[in-house]
């Protein structure tokens, strides 16, 4: 039987989890790591990442309203799309 009194487990950070899964050579991703320079995000993987972000935010993201700079670091992604919080 489940212990209902236990504190709920922290929800995984969907964005970080996705990016780490794409780059198994990385054990963590610094908030200010340049994701584009380091090829964590690139043209061919971008659409799948966009869908992860849309799922995390709960709404479609119009590319008319964003630029590559909005995806350069985890910090910028959180600020731009997630109100500064992890993508739970």
């Amino acid at each position, binding site marked *: 039987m489940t212990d209902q009194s236990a504190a709920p487990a922290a929800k995984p950070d969907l964005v970080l989890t996705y990016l780490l899964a794409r780059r198994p050579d990385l054990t963590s991703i610094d908030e200010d790591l340049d994701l584009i320079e380091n090829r964590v995000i690139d043209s061919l993987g971008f659409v799948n990442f966009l869908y992860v972000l*849309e799922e995390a935010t709960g709404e479609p993201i119009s590319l008319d309203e964003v630029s590559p700079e909005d995806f350069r670091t985890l910090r910028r992604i959180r600020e731009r799309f997630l109100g500064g919080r992890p993508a739970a």
Partner: protein
Amino acid sequence: MTETLPKNAAGLAGTLAGDPRFKEILDRLVAMSERDYYDPYRLFQWPETVVEDAYWMSPELMTVHGTAVGARLDEAQLRALSKWESVNFYSLNVHGIRELLTEIVARIHQPGYALTSEYFHHIIGEENEHMWFFATFCLKYAGKVYPDRAMAFAGPGIAEADTFLVFSRLLIFEELVDVFNQKMGNDQRLDPTIRKINAVHHQDESRHIAFGRQIVSLLHAELRRTLTVPQLAEIEAYLKRYLRASAESLCNPAAFRDAGIEEPYAARRETLADPAFEEFVARVLKRSTGFLAAEQIISDERIPAL
């Protein structure tokens, strides 16, 4: 769009002129384009509606075909999804043609392209018309073109390969689309208007694909002569990722959402992870991977996950 035109125009011209058959093929393609010329603005009837309660694309070409996600959908849901996956397919055509036109317009009558410019005129004219009838279909019968979801970041970073990669991407896009056009243009389960836009596109694309195969083959032969083995391997890895991304773009959560399927992102994830989708990827890309492998551009036909 590629940032720069080839810096070695003389080298490019020499590569393209190096095989006398290329000129013969170009002349033949120009003659065929002139012979088969039609006015698309008069060719299509555009009835007020297409049959709504039917398949809009061949069921075997839907991304959920044979998957657990597909098995959970009833017939009405599958038909609805076929409508929105077909609109996604035509929308991808619209956006793919925009990239193609941008790249060809950037090259026509520029240094290095003297041999190909005459045929570029035909490609530009024909692709503009294709874009028009695909967009017209989407807007008239679905009320929208799905937005482009691509964003350009840096590619492999091998400057000598830029021109090859542009024509390779265009060829892969055209071959993938043509697999669908060829089947749907002759699928009696589909509405006549749907059959016709696919059949007409297939007719024109067979010429563009013939051109694409020739130029990609010539350009890669030159790269094999000049690039290192690791550079060629990087190009192969990039092309395989492009192939995979192209196939995955056919599965759009917006189409799931418009078809009334709950949790569209989870449905897409599950579809892409399904073994039946692997079979789908291999099947719809078979023509491209077969050609690329035969030309020693890729070393095998496996397309790994992104």
